[in-house]
């Protein structure tokens, strides 16, 4: 046991306390960057690092942070972490930093990060906070990947850039039978609808999640 007694901190956010579908946090980035599966995966990994590390830092500082200015302290910690990582990547892994730099602003303003700092890391020890960070980032990542999968497949007919449904201009594969890409899938409103369908499916499977009126 020991290390594993807190495993529910990692597994719960994947399903019953999912930050996106249950707590409805992190919606802004879930809508903005899920037009392609690749961007979804990169964002999920980036948030995993930042939330894991950020939760530990905040947890270590939990007894010295003045409650009146705690939000701004949290914001400074996450912004500083992200900027340092960005600088180090720019100096030593320039190509990678170019891929990630567009996500930097979206990570700092991701409300899941602030939400977990505020709700969990401020009241728990570092190891538990680390697990909570990893769990929530994975829960976020799973939803991002699901939304990204459907948006890229139905919007562009590709997955990770590969033309899985044939070529829409040459009319091969599925397009030969009159199938068309739904360009609306590439726009943010369809991400919201996709997300809504995920929430619907999840709640109809687990009725305990439905709120009483």
């Amino acid at each position, binding site marked *: 046991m020991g290390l594993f007694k807190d495993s529910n901190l990692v597994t719960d956010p994947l399903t019953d306390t999912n930050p996106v579908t249950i707590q409805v946090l992190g919606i802004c980035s879930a809508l*903005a960057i899920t037009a392609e599966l690749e961007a979804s995966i*990169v964002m999920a990994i980036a948030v995993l690092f930042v939330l894991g590390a950020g939760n530990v830092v905040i947890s270590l500082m939990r007894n010295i942070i003045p*409650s009146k200015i705690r939000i701004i302290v949290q914001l400074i910690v996450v912004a500083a972490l992200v900027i340092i990582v960005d600088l180090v990547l720019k*100096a030593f892994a320039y190509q990678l930093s170019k891929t990630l730099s567009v996500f930097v602003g979206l990570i700092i303003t991701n409300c899941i990060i602030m939400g977990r700092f505020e709700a969990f890391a401020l009241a728990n020890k570092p190891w538990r906070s680390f697990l909570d960070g990893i769990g929530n980032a994975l829960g976020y990542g799973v939803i991002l990947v699901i939304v990204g999968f459907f948006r890229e497949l139905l919007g562009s007919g590709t997955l990770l850039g590969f033309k899985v449904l044939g070529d829409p201009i040459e009319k091969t594969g599925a397009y030969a039978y009159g199938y068309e890409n739904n360009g609306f899938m590439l726009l943010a409103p369809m991400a919201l609808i996709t997300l809504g369908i995920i929430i619907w499916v999840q709640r109809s499977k687990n009725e305990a999640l439905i709120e009483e009126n």
Partner: protein
Amino acid sequence: MEKRTDKNSYTILFAIGMVFIVGSILAFAASALKPNIDENKRLEKQQNILYAMGVNENEPGSVAMISADKVAAEFSKYIVKQLVIQGKEVKVDGKAYLIDIKKEQAAAKDASYVRKLPLFLGKKEGTIFYIVPIRGKGLWDAIWAYVSMDENMVVQGIFMDHKGETPGLGANINKRFFMDDFIGENMLDASNQFKGIAVSKGNADPTNIDKNDNEVDAIAGATITGDGVAAMIRSELKVYSSYFIHLKNN
């Protein structure tokens, strides 16, 4: 009893201390890593210039720059001349590629300032490429490009990049499917006047067969980034057009 961390004096001291510590760490990291970052940016410029004239390691569908350890040698091999155009004056300057376009654009807002325009002449297999760096605005932040053209302002290659366009949408301007559409497009219209290249939606030529229509197919969902690309080409390449006209007449 009031907690120690709830006191105003503690809060203020904490805030001052935090700003001081985090500020120092960030300043230290930024200045310690600056030489590395600057060197990476300098090599990237050379890579991008070479990419535009077709010196790259592309495979179908991918964008692959020539590797960083080879780029200095290749740059001096293929780039035969670097020019700076300032008003009517044209000077040779081996460091023209280091001119900061952003600073020049800002300085040129003052009407008395004559902007320095860098231009690189590349030579590959006997063909001369004229490579021009341009810079403009996308939806969220800066976008820029290196355009290589022949003496008639027909695009031979282009490399485009951005600072913070939306991933999956506007960020795709640096992908092959978008950049390669520009190759062969003419910057001039039928009467040889500068027109630029528009990024247009719903154009009747999605496979881009017509190279004289002054337009390429836009990316769905990235209207403002696409408009930014078109505006950048129109305004930034226009300032070079008199040089090309002069080139033709001699």
